[in-house]
């Protein structure tokens, strides 16, 4: 920073406010709590775009991916320059090739496990843009395509590195075209959780792992080596993915007793997703074998069954999994596993 530009005054990272709010010094704690309450008032609502009409594909194209990867060249114009299309040879840029492969891995899971052709079920072309913006530590789904940053060189590396992150983003598209869960509060946490579930299943399917072999982590390998943490989220043990001096501790709960009420992050969509995430993990590990087969099938049936409202809450989603399990598997070990899992995370199913 040069003196003639601006003088830095203060920065209070949110996790420090959280720490300070629990301070043994009442004045410090009260001041921090006031700031946190002010933060909570600043909530923003997000409304997802309505599902668009699927493009018509030529006969013979069904059941095949239609991938295109673009390069934003560190700019923000989307989609950027096309650098690799379907069936084209790998390029020199590993980020481009990872995105291309990740789109394929996600397509493969949905088609081979569920007979779902692309994320809309009708062969939607899959589009990704990489190298978005400079030092951009994020990836997102913009309603039409996936967008990946290169990381901020401080906390995050290249967002195309973990295949479950690619699967997570595309699964936002799957949700948009199916249950269209509103991206706020409990329905938003379910939207996030469904992306973590299918993101993790993309990784497990690609590695041909059983539920016991899977790491159940989201974003493993994404953190910069300086960060004390293995991943962003753990479906197996929510709240344990990272514990870092700068970032603070993974805030995810794994039980309704610890549900976080907040206005930030669209009502804590990336926090409370830990609860349904853990329920899925419990179903998958109770049943054993390949998680995408029965546990994944149940979640898929719920998302595509047409019974979920956009503002679905946890208990309504849980009840829908019970109904979907009975419809597909009857009264057997599957229904017992589902009921047991939701009970374990404190979500009623009736």
């Amino acid at each position, binding site marked *: 920073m040069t003196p003639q530009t*601006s003088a830095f005054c203060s920065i209070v990272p949110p996790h420090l406010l959280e720490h300070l709010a629990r301070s043994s010094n009442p004045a410090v704690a009260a001041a921090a709590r006031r700031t946190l309450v002010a933060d909570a008032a600043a909530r923003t609502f997000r409304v997802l775009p309505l599902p668009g009409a699927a493009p018509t594909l030529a006969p013979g194209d069904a059941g095949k991916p239609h991938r295109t990867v673009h390069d934003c060249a560190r700019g923000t114009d989307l989609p950027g320059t096309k650098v690799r299309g379907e069936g084209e040879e790998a390029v020199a840029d590993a980020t481009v090739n990872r995105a291309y492969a990740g789109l394929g891995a996600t397509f493969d899971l949905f088609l081979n496990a569920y007979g779902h052709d692309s994320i809309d079920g009708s062969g939607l072309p899959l589009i990704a843009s990489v190298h978005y913006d400079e030092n951009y530590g994020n990836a*997102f789904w913009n309603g039409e395509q996936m967008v990946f940053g290169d990381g901020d060189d401080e906390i995050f590396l290249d967002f195309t590195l973990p295949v479950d992150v690619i699967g997570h983003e595309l699964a936002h598209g799957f949700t948009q075209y199916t249950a269209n869960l509103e991206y706020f509060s409990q329905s938003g946490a379910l939207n996030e959780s469904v992306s973590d579930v299918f993101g993790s299943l993309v990784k497990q399917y690609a590695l041909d792992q059983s539920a016991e072999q899977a790491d159940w982590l989201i974003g493993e390998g994404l953190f910069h080596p300086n960060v004390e943490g293995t991943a962003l989220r753990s479906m197996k043990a929510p709240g344990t993915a990272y514990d870092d001096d700068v970032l603070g501790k993974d805030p995810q709960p794994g039980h309704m007793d610890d549900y976080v009420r907040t206005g930030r992050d669209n009502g804590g969509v990336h926090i409370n997703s830990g609860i349904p995430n853990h329920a899925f993990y419990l179903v998958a590990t109770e049943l054993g074998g390949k998680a995408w087969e029965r546990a994944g099938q149940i979640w898929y049936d719920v998302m595509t069954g047409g019974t979920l409202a956009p503002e679905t809450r946890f208990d309504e989603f849980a009840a829908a999994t019970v109904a979907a399990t009975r419809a597909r598997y009857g009264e057997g070990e599957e229904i017992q596993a589902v009921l047991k899992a939701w009970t374990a995370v404190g979500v009623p199913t009736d």
Partner: protein
Amino acid sequence: MRIRVRRTGGFAGIERSAEVAVTDPELEALAATVLADGDGDVRGVPDGFSYEITVDGRTVRCCDPRLTDAQRTLVTRVLKEGA
């Protein structure tokens, strides 16, 4: 002029905020533009960042990816210089 930027959401759900006291005319002009333009498109996207930009007590909101050039330049500079 004091400029505060709070960035929430994102894939990680990790929040960042920074505040700077500004004397640079270029940054002041940028902040004035952002204030005059008002709230951006506050309809965000899944995993996108949301931003609150507060300039001398007045706050405007915007979301990725639909930031104006002025909003993007300002949030980038404040988050970097206030870090």
